[in-house]
Each structure stands twice: as structure tokens, then as C-alpha cells.
């Protein structure tokens, strides 16, 4: 059994333990400092906490990693959100002249929520998820990850399980953090294909020419469609659901071969469609696949520079699951139900320690603070949280390498400039003779 029975009533006891011994503060701080390149980047970052009894506090900010730890251990937040990096310390925003306190930068974020797919999934609805519909998240991650990297040129993406029914993406590149509201909204709209609310039946409309982005996305959807839609969701399994599929067509008549065998292939060969419409309807098979599978993102989450989003490694109070980073190399085997809950990892903490641990105890006696950290590192390593922190570590490594590369490039340029400068001076002095 990989998940202990989680009971929200235990949160008040589990959370303090989590924040004292398991939350990966040093990696967290390392992330949000972004190499210390920008002054006060961490200090000017807004955090918001939801405390016990739903008390919500905004504009929390911290000057050091230590202060962050102490405050979180003291306040014991049930939920943690990360906001923007402001022009001043958020905790002092009231002291700033009105109008000058502004959100300056933030990661570009995306929020994919399973409830947005309720009209096209038959297995669950609302906050429920299951292995059958989880494929939608897999598809979403593949499509968006590719587009953000290949089309937009971003490199540092952190995908995180939200803890209940969706995933978040944090795009952490320098360029991404500096994007304006207009740019963020343009990116989100570029990535949006499914449009319309309750009253809209046909939510995807394709017309010639089909943009390369759509083609890329389609090839991802096609890979999963047979298993996901035809088998798992069984969208052609009952007259009712077939009607729903066919309702999307802009056609006047159709007929459906009754009594055919269960498995239908991608091109709806068992369904003949007579199309009387002038245009459209030529890509209906693609449109249906996209309507059933293409990622649905909330543009409003991505637009705002000051929008607050759930923090990685925070706990989901309803499910107890930790918001863990997702390893894209293992995406197809990711199982949201295997994600550790806070009760599980706290339980794992209590297990008797391995022998190697005793050696470290000796070193601890020398340095208290380091000891605390080392202990914490040992602690999470003994739990199921370990592998997720590793994913996070790799992500941070990649960013650090990239920053180093940038700095080398820049100093190389400066060097080149100064060399040129020297040549000029020499040339001058030579001439003067």
C-alpha cells in the first residue's frame, strides 16, 4: 500500500512535522533565488498562506532562507501560493507610495484542471480523477511541453502535480519571467484550441491551412487516442455517447452501422457521414480528436503577472498529497495515486533509521545548522518524497548550468570588447609617433 489513509483532521499534527523535517527548503530557496543574479529577487517575492480555519494572508515575504523556514514552521500554512517578484518587499507594501508598488516579474505558468474536461470524460466528473482520464494530463503535458520548448524556445520547465485533479507548469527561463501581460496572454491563446462554454457544441474549428503547431499536437493526440478515447473512455460504446460525438459534426445527415464489432478505428470507418455543409466538416475527425483530448488551459491563470499559484511541495489539504514535480522521462508511468501523501511520508519518517545514518550523527555534533539541514536531507531521503526532490534537483542543476553558460558568454563578449579597445589605443599611440 503506497498511500497511507489520509485524514484531513490530522493535518494540524502532520504539517508541523512536514515543515520541520521534510520540506526541501534549501532547494526551494535555491530555485527562487535564481542564482542571485537579480538583487533582492527572493526578498521581493510574494507568498500567500492559507492558515487553519481558512484564514488567508497575502503579501508574505522573507529576507533569507532561514526566515522562510522559521515563519513557515511558526504559521504552519495549510496552503502555500507563490506570487510575483515585486518592486519592493511585499510585506512592506503598505509603506510604499501608492502606485509605485508593482509586480515586476514572475514565471510563466499554466494550470490544467481536469474539471475543464467534464463535457468529454465519461469516467469521472468534478474533482474526481481516475487512471482512465489521467491520460488527458499526459497528453496535455506532451503537447504543451513540446510547444513551449520548440516553438517558444523556453528551456526550463517545471511540471508539477497539483495534488488533486491537475497539473501546473512553471516556465522559469529569464525571458519567461520578464514577459508582459500581453505576451503571456498571447502565448496562452496560441496554445488554445478548444473554445466555448456550455452552449458551444463544436468547440474546435479547423480550417486551411493547418498550422504546424496544430499538426504537432495532432500527432501527439493520435498516439493516445485509440487507447484513451475508444477503449478507456469508450466514446463509441453507447448510442448516447456516439450521438454526443456526432453532434459536433456540422453535417445534416449521418448513418451509423449497427451491430458492428466493438473496436472502431481512428477514422470512424464504421460511421459514414454525408456532409451537406459548404465548408468545414472536412477535418471533422481531427476536430473530434482535439475536442476530446487537446489541453484546456485557463488563460486567466497564465495572463497575470501577479497571479498566485499553488507552490510545488505544498500539501493539498483535501487529498493530503504533496504537489510533486513530474519527471517527464517517466511521464507515461506517472500515477497520481502513487504520489505520496503527507501521512505516508510522516509515517516513513518514524521508521527505524539505517546504520549509515549513525555516521552522520557524528558530523552533526560539529555544526548545528548544517546538521539541521543534513538531517533534513537524510530525512526526506528516507521517504517516498526522495525521488521527487531528485527531479527538482535536476531541474535546478540545469538552470544553474545555463546561467553559468550565460555568464561565460557575456564575459567572453566583454573580453572581446576590451581587447579591441586595447588595439585601438595601440594604433593611436603608434600613429602619434
Amino acid at each position, binding site marked *: 500500500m503506497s498511500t497511507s489513509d489520509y485524514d484531513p483532521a490530522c493535518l494540524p499534527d502532520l504539517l508541523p512535522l512536514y515543515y520541520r523535517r521534510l520540506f526541501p527548503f534549501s532547494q526551494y530557496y535555491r530555485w527562487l533565488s535564481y542564482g542571485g543574479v537579480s538583487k533582492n529577487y527572493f526578498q521581493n517575492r510574494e507568498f500567500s498562506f492559507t492558515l487553519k480555519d481558512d484564514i488567508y494572508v497575502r503579501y508574505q515575504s522573507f529576507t533569507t532562507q532561514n526566515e522562510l523556514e522559521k515563519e513557515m514552521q511558526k504559521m504552519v500554512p495549510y496552503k502555500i501560493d507563490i506570487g510575483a517578484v515585486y518592486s519592493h518587499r511585499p510585506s512592506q507594501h503598505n509603506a510604499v507610495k501608492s502606485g509605485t508598488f508593482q509586480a515586476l516579474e514572475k514565471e510563466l505558468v499554466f494550470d490544467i484542471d481536469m474539471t475543464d474536461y467534464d463535457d468529454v470524460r465519461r469516467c469521472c466528473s468534478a474533482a474526481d480523477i481516475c487512471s482512465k482520464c489521467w491520460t488527458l494530463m499526459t497528453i496535455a503535458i506532451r503537447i504543451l511541453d513540446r510547444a513551449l520548448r*520548440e*516553438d*517558444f*524556445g*523556453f528551456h526550463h520547465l517545471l511540471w508539477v502535480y497539483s495534488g488533486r485533479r491537475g497539473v501546473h507548469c512553471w516556465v522559469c527561463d529569464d*525571458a519567461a519571467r520578464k*514577459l*508582459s501581460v*500581453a*505576451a503571456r*496572454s*498571447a*502565448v496562452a*491563446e*496560441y496554445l488554445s484550441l478548444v473554445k466555448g462554454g456550455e452552449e458551444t457544441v463544436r468547440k474546435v474549428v479547423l480550417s486551411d*491551412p*493547418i*498550422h*504546424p*503547431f*496544430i*499538426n504537432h499536437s495532432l500527432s501527439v493526440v493520435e498516439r493516445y487516442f485509440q487507447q484513451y478515447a475508444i477503449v478507456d473512455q469508450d466514446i463509441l460504446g453507447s448510442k448516447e455517447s456516439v450521438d454526443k460525438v456526432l453532434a459536433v459534426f456540422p453535417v445534416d445527415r449521418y448513418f451509423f452501422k449497427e451491430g458492428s464489432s466493438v473496436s472502431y478505428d481512428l477514422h470512424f470507418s464504421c460511421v459514414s457521414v454525408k456532409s451537406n455543409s459548404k465548408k468545414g466538416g472536412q477535418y471533422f475527425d481531427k476536430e473530434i480528436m482535439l475536442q476530446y483530448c487537446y489541453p484546456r488551459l485557463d488563460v486567466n491563470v497564465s495572463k497575470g503577472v501577479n497571479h498566485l499559484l499553488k507552490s510545488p511541495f505544498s500539501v493539498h489539504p483535501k487529498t493530503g498529497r504533496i504537489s510533486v514535480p513530474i519527471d517527464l522521462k517517466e511521464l507515461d508511468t506517472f500515477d497520481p495515486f502513487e504520489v505520496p501523501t503527507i501521512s505516508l511520508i510522516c509515517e516513513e519518517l518514524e521508521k527505524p533509521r539505517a546504520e549509515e545514518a549513525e555516521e552522520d550523527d557524528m558530523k552533526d555534533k560539529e555544526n548545528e545548522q548544517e546538521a539541521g539541514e543534513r538531517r533534513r536531507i537524510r530525512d526526506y531521503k528516507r521517504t517516498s518524497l526522495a525521488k521527487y526532490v531528485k527531479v527538482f534537483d535536476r531541474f535546478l542543476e540545469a538552470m544553474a548550468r545555463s546561467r553559468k553558460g550565460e555568464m561565460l558568454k557575456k564575459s567572453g563578449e566583454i573580453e572581446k570588447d576590451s581587447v579591441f579597445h586595447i588595439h585601438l589605443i595601440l594604433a593611436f599611440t603608434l600613429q602619434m609617433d
Partner: protein
Amino acid sequence: MQFPGRRKKVIGSSQNDLYDHCLQFYGQPPLENISLTEFETFAVERLKLLKSVENIGVSYVKNSEQYVKKLDAEFSSLNFPLRTELGDRRVQGGTSEYEKRRKDHISHFILRLAYCQTEDLRRWFIQQEMDLFRYRFGELTSKHKTDFLHKNNLKYETVSAEEKKSLKDKLITSSYGLSGITVEEYDFYKVPFQDALDLVRTRKVYLLAGNAYIPHHEIVTIVLNDFRTRLSKALAMTARSLPAVQSDERLQPLLSHLSHAYVGQDYSIQKNMGKISLEQIDALSGKSFPLCMRHLHKALRENHHLRHGGRMQYGLFLKGIGLTLDQALQFWRSEFVKGKVDADKFDKAYAYSVRHMFGKEGKRTDYTPYSCMKVILSNPPSQGDYHGCPFRHSDPELLKQKLQNYKVSPSGINQLLPMLAEILELVKGMHYQLACQKYFELTHNVEDAGFSLNHPNQYFTESQKLLGGGLEIKKEVDMSQRSQENPANMTRPSQANSKQAHEEMGDLDSFFQDE
């Protein structure tokens, strides 16, 4: 920011250097002396040009044949540079290309002074200048476009032939109207996606590694974005320096006159307060109300109620035609009380919102009556609403019926059907304001409305003028009326124009005698 008209040293630059392209970004302010006469003439003429850009843009599909024809005519009659070379033969007795460009340059900066002060003014100015720029850029030859880009440091990298070849299929499918041949022939520019947001947002461009691959003919969108950003920043800066300008007594009245030539028509200034009695409203609604307000009035009378959207649109309109707060309260209460709302509830719930409209509650903003644009574009009506623009929001069949019922003048029966057809055609083409103008012509039995409709209260005022109604339309309105006149009528020879301008100058000169 340096202002013409002040004593500044003249920078002697050769003609060719200063205005070497017929189009510019207006990056550098002019640095010469000009007379006050030129100052005002230039400004007024540019304002006329911008108003034409606005009107023609509303009346015709952008870049259609008629649009181009009309706008070209405006350019020539007002002497603004369009597409000619600097060295071109000077038309006998006309303005040289150089002079046109100089006027373009100076007039733009003068209008910046007039239009930087409020958000609304800025927005309007930027919108028209952008449309103007877009038109002029579009009219340039390919070579001139490239020249312009280079001269203005828009160093967008061109995509190499090899890269184009390798990306050929992708480029073809990502931009409308491209083929293998055109991809080979056209220049493509590599632009960071942040500079091409409009194209990215609508997925009309190929993206790779953060760069948008823009075909030559689309580069205008990019350039426009750049233009808008620069102008927006510049206006903000201008606004900050404005107090210095306003302290110059020669300029202040001119500048406020210029901005009122546009703003004055928002009907926020109630010129005819108290000149209407409540008893007149029913009759007026049939004679002088635009269709939207007539519709709202009828719904109010029939249902003894209107929802919020309707109350706002109609209530503010009534304020604009001259109802006082007390009259308004009486009007709404008497109607609502006939319905399900008792006097007490009215006083508690609805009276507040009426007072709010008149700026007597809350943050005390004196709300302005909605313009046509606002009615058409925002807050579409849903089930149970009667607000909005009937030409935009009603089903065409229903609209047709309504129009047939509302036709006022019996003598025009022969005209009715063709007129109705014309109106419905305009509606189909989304020219809602023109359709309403036709409705005006139909109900007032005139061939030409004589104005370009953009505000319901304008409809009312014009109607009253035509019918010789009992309201005094103050003379101040005239100056702005002139600049609003139907562009089709602005074919007066330029001599008449300058004569008129001269007369105005005459008055101004005497005004500034102590100069």
C-alpha cells in the same frame, strides 16, 4: 519636448536629410519656428485628417476600393504626404512634397500636446494615428518598406535562403496565402515572438525557438506594435511636460479648443438642462430618438421596468438630452411604480442608481452617455434585455418588422422598401452606424443625414435641429460639428477651407493682440 512657436534656434538641415522618407515614426520633435497661424492651420488640418480616418474606417471596409479612394481624396485635399518621391514634380501651384512632410511632422507633435491629457483622448489619438500609419505604410512599395525599416533601426534579421528552404512546408502552412514560390521569393524576417504578439496570439505565423518567421507583407503588424508602444510612451511623457505648455497663453486656448473639437461631443456637458419636460418624452421618442432609445423607451412603458444595462444606456441618454436629476427620478419612479415596484422600494433600490448616473453618489463620476461604439461593442444584451444597438443585436427579421412599424413619414411609402433593403444590407456588412443614419434619413425624409453618426445624443440633436425643435442648440457646437461633417461632403475646394481658416485666424489674431 520643445514646442514650435517658442523662440528656439533653428537647426539648419538640408531639406533632403530631414524628410527623406514620406513616412516617419515621429521620433524627433520639430525644432524650428513657426507662426501661430501655421500652428493652428496645421493642427486643424491634421485633426480633420484623423477624423476622416475614423469616419471612413467606420463607413467602409478597410483597404477596400472605396476606402482607399476616399482616404486618398482626403490626403490630397488636406495636403498630407502619401506615397510620392521627394523629388517628384511639384504640381502647379500646389504644395511640394517637402512641405507636406514638414506639415505631417509638425502637426503630429502639436496634436500630441492637445491629446495627451486624458486616457480617452490618448486612446483616440493613438487609434487614429495607428490607422493612419497602417494605411500609409501599406501604400509604400516593397523597397520603401525595407528602407523605412532600416532607417528606423528595426533590424529584423532576414531568414537565409537555406533556412527558408528547410522550413518551406512549415512556412507555407503557417501564414495565409503563401505558396512554395512565394516563400522562395519573399523576404522573411526573424523577429522575437515578443515583438509579434498579434500574429502569435492568432497563430498566423510560424514559431521556432522563440522567433516568429514573418513574411515581408506582414511586417506592418510588427511595425505598428512598435509604433503604438512608442507613441504611448511619448504621450505619457508629453502629459508630464504639459504644464509648461499650458502656461503659454498663446497656446493654451488653441490646444483646449482642439481637444474639445473631439471631446465636446461626448454630451457630458448638458447644454440643454431642463429644456425638456417629461410630457414631451413620448412624442420625442417617436420623432427624434435613435432606434435603440426608442426601443428602450417602448420597453420601459410596456413593462414598467428595465434591467440595469437598459437603465444605464437609456438613463444616460436622457441625461444627455437635458433631463435634470429631479426629472429623471420622477420619470423612472412614475414608470416603475406602475409595475411591480412600490415607491418605497424604488427609493431604496433604484433611486440610488439614478443619482449615481448624475454623479451624486459613490465616487461622484459624472457618467457620460454611451457613444455608438460603446453601445455596439460592449455588454451585448441577453434574454430579457432591451439595450444594445438594434442594428447590431437584433435578428434581421425582427429588425425589419420593427422598422416597418416605426416608419414615421407617410409620404415616403415608395421609398420605404428600397430604404429598408439598403438598411439591411448595411447591417449585413456590419455598418451599424450607417444603417442607423439611413434610418434617420428614412424617418426624417431627407436624402442625406448631413452628419456622420457616432453618438445617440448626436442623433437626437441633429433630429431636433432638422425639425426646428423647441430646444436651443448652442453655437459652440458648430465648430465641432464642422469637423464631424460627413466626409463625402468635404469636397469643398481648398480655397474655401483656407478662407474659412483665415477668418478664424482673423478672430484669433485680435484675440492675441498683446502678442
